[in-house]
């Protein structure tokens, strides 16, 4: 299939997100600045001020208000976006759940940053992993290109009639948000056509069909509404796949639940999210040239968790290392580690070794990842308790 002619731009991850938002031209954006998301909203606010988008920009006094405004505008029937990081996401917390529970298809880039305290502005995944149970779909991006592609797809996924769940598109603070890279951008018209118009199910502004949002919902109905939400999340996988395929036909870049890099014959697989997957691929390349059968599985969709497909993709490995860029403080290991083990349960007997790394932006490099492959090969596993990798002992 012939793909469209694309413009190649040099953009930071934040600019890439802003460019996607410009093309989406959401009807309402409510946001509050926080490092490292600031540049994204700065750029988008510039588009709004310059008349490049028709968006109603609502500048609020906090992230709690930002998400509240998004909830109101989305319930009204608008296509709504915001963006945040770290403490901003934490301050939104209550309303993050409200957005998902009210089934409002809000799209929110989250520029991953460590949570306080002590205060730290650099990348880890504690913020978005913290709300893994909030009912939002979560897409993790490796680079600026994926930031752009994921944000555009997120609109279609969120607004799908059978789903109607908000979507978080995450990317690593500073590592991706502030580094410039090549991004192939679709024509504006193609994006507009791909996302189409939002047709809200119960718009609050339809005065001919008045509805109530957020009523009291007690023992006799609440559970039914949670069941609906859980089923929508379960159904989201098929929609994410279908949208990823359609986007592939449009752009030449197809997306699924995860990316498999040299995994088909790999004995040892490292599973990572975000920018670290790129570093892991470089490590795998080096080890492959030395004859080692290693591969990388980059997880893109964390919510819903693609357990069955992931287990099948890992089935041939002798051992797997899971890299978590958040602690989770479960006493066992990070959230990705636990999900992967759970996905393999009773399917395959493969050792899963957990690594918590890169907290507060602590660097991870090719040699470090090569050493993890070395651990797997030597049978040094961290199965019961994840290792804190890269910490000074």
């Amino acid at each position: 299939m012939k793909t469209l002619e694309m413009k190649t731009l040099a953009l930071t991850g934040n600019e890439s997100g802003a460019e996607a938002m410009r093309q989406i031209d959401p009807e309402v954006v409510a946001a509050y600045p926080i490092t490292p998301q600031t540049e994204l909203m700065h750029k988008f606010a510039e588009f709004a001020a310059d008349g490049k988008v028709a968006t109603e920009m609502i500048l609020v006094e906090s992230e709690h208000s930002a998400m509240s405004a998004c909830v109101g505008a989305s319930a009204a029937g608008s296509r709504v976006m915001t963006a945040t990081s770290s403490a901003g996401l934490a301050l939104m917390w209550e309303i993050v759940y409200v957005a998902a529970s009210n089934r409002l298809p809000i799209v929110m880039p989250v520029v991953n940053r460590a949570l306080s305290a002590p205060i730290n502005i650099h990348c880890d995944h504690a913020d978005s992993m913290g709300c893994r149970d909030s009912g939002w779909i979560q897409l993790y991006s490796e680079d600026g290109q994926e930031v752009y592609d994921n944000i555009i797809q997120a609109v279609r996924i969120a607004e799908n009639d059978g789903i109607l769940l908000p979507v978080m598109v995450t990317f690593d603070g500073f590592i991706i948000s502030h580094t410039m890279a090549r991004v192939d951008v679709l024509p504006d018209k193609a994006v507009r056509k791909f996302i189409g118009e939002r047709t809200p199910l119960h718009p609050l502004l339809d005065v001919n069909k008045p509805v109530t949002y957020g009523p009291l919902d007690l023992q006799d109905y609440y559970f039914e509404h949670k069941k609906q939400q859980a089923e929508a999340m379960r159904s989201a996988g098929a929609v994410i796949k279908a949208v990823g395929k359609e986007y592939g036909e449009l752009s030449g870049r197809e997306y699924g639940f995860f990316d498999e890099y040299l995994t088909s014959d790999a004995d040892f697989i490292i599973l990572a999210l975000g920018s670290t997957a790129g570093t892991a691929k470089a490590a795998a390349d080096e080890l492959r040239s030395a004859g080692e059968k290693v591969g990388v599985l980059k997880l893109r969709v964390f919510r819903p968790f693609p357990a069955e497909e992931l287990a099948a993709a890992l089935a041939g490995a002798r051992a797997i290392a899971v890299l978590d860029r958040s602690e989770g403080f479960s006493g066992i290991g990070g959230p990705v580690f636990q999900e992967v083990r759970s996905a393999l349960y009773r399917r395959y007997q493969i050792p899963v070794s957990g690594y918590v790394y890169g907290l507060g932006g602590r660097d991870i490099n090719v040699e470090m990842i090569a050493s993890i492959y070395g651990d797997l090969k030597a049978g040094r596993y961290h199965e019961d308790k994840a290792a804190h990798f890269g910490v000074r002992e």
Partner: protein
Amino acid sequence: MADKQPKWKDIPIGGVITEAGNAFQYNTGDWRSERPFVDMEKCIHCLQCWVFCPDASVLVENEKMSGFDYVHCKGCGICAHVCPVNAIEMVPEGEADKVAADQWGIKEKKTASESGKEKPAK
């Protein structure tokens, strides 16, 4: 009761309510731990109870207090509190059915017991 209620596939998503006025269908009366009774011999139909009831559960016919809507009354006791002639008594739900059955058995009980508005606590 649960069998009669709609299943998860049959209700609007997100807790959205699409029909107006359906709070009326909601039996908030089963939240009640105390039930108000009115003594019509004492009642002067000033309708203070009607004014203050937060749940519109005081029934009025021909401008006269005629009783309570027990399907919606949550038993807060404001009516009994504001009644200027102490015509309303709050009775624990466990005893309320018996009281209702005995009609004004409540009176005897009140004079026999240590509590009640006529007999302030010592």
